[in-house]
């Protein structure tokens, strides 16, 4: 069975540009979460979507936005890129979005964004 798939795996952008990252959850999973992992640190929560609705947002500026499609895939958009946005962006899927919390988040391998 396919796990969480993310694209692209690597990309390079310049400051001020915009980027779109894509995620396909595990088949049957209805929730997608996005995390940012800066080199040498733990992942930080950006968004969670469940049943195509935003269910939670982390402490990130409005330059970050996301959406979930009817097939439960998701896109993360970042506008007006800054050098500090360079990171590994992880998508995770889970069966449910909240309570009852089954606990397990399945992470993809991430999209590594470099902003020059």
């Amino acid at each position: 069975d396919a796990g969480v798939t993310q694209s692209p795996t690597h990309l390079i952008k310049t400051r001020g540009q915009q980027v779109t990252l894509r995620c396909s959850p595990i088949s049957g999973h209805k929730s997608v979460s996005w995390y940012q992992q800066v080199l040498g640190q733990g992942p930080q929560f950006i968004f969670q979507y469940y049943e195509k609705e935003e269910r939670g947002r982390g402490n990130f500026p409005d330059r970050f936005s996301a959406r979930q499609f009817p097939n439960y895939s998701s896109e993360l958009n970042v506008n007006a890129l800054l050098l500090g946005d360079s990171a590994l962006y992880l998508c995770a899927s889970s069966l449910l979005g909240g309570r009852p919390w089954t606990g397990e988040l399945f992470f993809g391998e991430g999209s590594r964004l470099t902003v020059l």
Partner: protein
Amino acid sequence: QQQVKQSPQSLIVQKGGISIINCAYENTAFDYFPWYQQFPGKGPALLIAIRPDVSEKKEGRFTISFNKSAKQFSLHIMDSQPGDSATYFCAASQLLIQGAQKLVFGQGTRLTINP
């Protein structure tokens, strides 16, 4: 704001030894504590998890010890093997107002097992 503190940052253990990684938290609303293992170039993978009504959970060579009053929990890897060399993250789960479940991660521990 770092809500989950993890130590040590790096750890070197001999093959067959016990690896111990510690985490501490402040927010008493956390209600689920997973540990993730991450290899270079890969996403984190769930290793083992515990709920605060349990003081210890063991799965194979991996054990979580949980101290609710001290707000601390730790991962013990028994009989550590070179294949265990990876970065380990503790995390704590928080329910958000909108109903989302958010994981707050520690800073990570880079574990190296020497053969």
